[in-house]
């Protein structure tokens, strides 16, 4: 049992004042603005939004500034902020098939209707440090080209396979109410919607490692990237007083359709199955890893043997949240004096008993 302590107020206040000063760093170096973080550390901001489970770039940028760039601390600030706000309701489901694409690639088909666009990507860079950036770079303007006629319609790769019945369809909306892990605790086993909510806000490193583990043989799923798309999607909401959907604005998301081999079962012929990833901002690593883990977590639904961590719902969902994980790990540094005194007493008593036994034996 944890027994609280008291005292230390002056030291705590002074520690926080010191933190503020250290956060600022050398006063001779200009102060970072929130807009600079939002614009120039955009992928870091995206990660805080995804794991903070709140799309608000300015808030995530400010949280990063306050947290000295610590992602989990920034996630903590964002999650704490959201608890102070009322919820107006749920959006109309996002139409990712109609998003304005800034990037779209497929590893399964080279000739996609609508084409593949690389967009702003680190792929194919040489990963050489650009010392010119340290000097203040001369920016070469982005190239432009006339969009080809077919660029407006970009069907999902999974729709193309679906026409021939070679891939399973998406699970249809059966109207059962959605569970919400921010409102009620998760009961295991839980449905795929609940799992995707947890994965979407899960720690990128943890989800990445689990996805990687499936590739290395711990719950192998034979994945191909059907499609990764990054772009802006309209967010619509039906206010009660209006009764029709209004556009709230647009936001950037990354979507991954993973296509997985499936040898079939007694009921189902051999076909491709799917794993799905969707995250706030631009994060292909997270969306792809999420799709791998989503597919792995369908093992029991598809009659596959359960033998690996990535297939274990409770293991994955109970440990994927960076804030919960850090809370329980880092609480160990808080004063545990009374607990430890009890442990100390116990160890002394056991040693004394062991000593007595040895003496008796001699």
């Amino acid at each position: 049992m944890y027994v609280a302590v008291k005292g230390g107020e002056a030291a705590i206040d002074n520690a926080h004042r010191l933190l503020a000063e250290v956060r600022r760093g050398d006063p001779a170096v200009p102060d970072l603005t929130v807009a600079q973080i939002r614009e120039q550390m955009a992928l870091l901001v995206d990660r805080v939004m995804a794991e903070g489970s709140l799309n608000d770039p300015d808030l995530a940028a400010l949280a990063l500034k306050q947290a000295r760039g610590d992602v989990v601390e920034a996630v903590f600030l964002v999650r704490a902020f959201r608890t102070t706000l009322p919820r107006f309701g749920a959006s109309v489901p996002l139409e990712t098939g109609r998003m304005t694409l800034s990037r779209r690639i497929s590893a399964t088909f080279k000739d996609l209707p609508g084409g593949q666009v690389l967009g702003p990507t680190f792929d194919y860079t040489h990963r050489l440090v650009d010392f010119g950036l340290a000097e203040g770079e001369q920016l070469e303007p982005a190239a432009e080209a006339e969009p080809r006629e077919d660029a407006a319609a970009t069907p999902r790769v999974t729709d193309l396979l679906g026409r021939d019945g070679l891939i399973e369809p998406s699970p249809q909306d059966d109207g059962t109410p959605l569970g919400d892990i921010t409102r009620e605790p998760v009961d295991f086993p839980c449905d795929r919607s609940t799992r995707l909510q947890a994965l979407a806000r899960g720690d990128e490193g943890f989800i990445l490692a689990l996805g990687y583990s499936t590739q290395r043989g711990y719950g192998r799923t034979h994945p191909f990237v059907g499609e990764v798309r990054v772009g802006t999607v309209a967010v619509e909401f039906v206010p009660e007083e209006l009764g029709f959907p209004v556009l709230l604005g647009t936001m950037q998301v990354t979507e991954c359709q993973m296509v997985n081999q499936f040898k079939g079962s007694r009921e189902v012929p051999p076909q491709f199955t799917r794993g799905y990833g969707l995250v706030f901002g631009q994060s292909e690593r997270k969306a792809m890893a999420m799709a791998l883990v989503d597919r792995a977590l369908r093992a029991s639904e598809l009659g596959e043997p359960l033998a690996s961590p990535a297939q274990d719902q409770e293991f994955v969902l109970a440990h994927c949240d960076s804030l919960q994980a850090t809370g329980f790990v880092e609480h160990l540094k808080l004063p545990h004096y009374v607990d430890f005194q009890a442990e100390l007493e116990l160890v002394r008593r056991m040693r004394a008993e062991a000593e007595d036994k040895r003496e008796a034996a001699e």
Partner: protein
Amino acid sequence: MAVTDQGSQTQARRAVMALCAAATGQELATALAGLAAPGAEDIRAPEIGLVMATGRIGGDGRPFNLGEVSVTRAAVRLADGRTGFAYHLGRDRARARRAAILDALWQGEADRPGVEEALAPVARRAAADAAAQARRTAATRVDFLTLARGED
């Protein structure tokens, strides 16, 4: 006929509200300044809250909760009783209130063309931004070729 009119009027209103959602706070202030808008009182003070953004499994299947978005809403009443609403991503109360006033003004037949004209520069700017973005993206369109393997 009446139902269709109702439907097309809702579509037109949604389009104006969408345009306001795409506008910056400054653009909305400029639009309002040109309209000599009457005074407006808050039905509900501009308020920041959350909307749970939902996606669909596989992009087209059963919904799931993706995560929340911050939203600011405003509701105003003009002196003549017209009411207007705005719901925007982000936390800019002044911007949402301006959009609610524009929505209220648009409710009057007489003010409708004026509101739409005042917002026309926003539509032009947004279209130009989208076109420039599409041209930059189009320049990165890639045609991969499959190479024959040497040993075959």
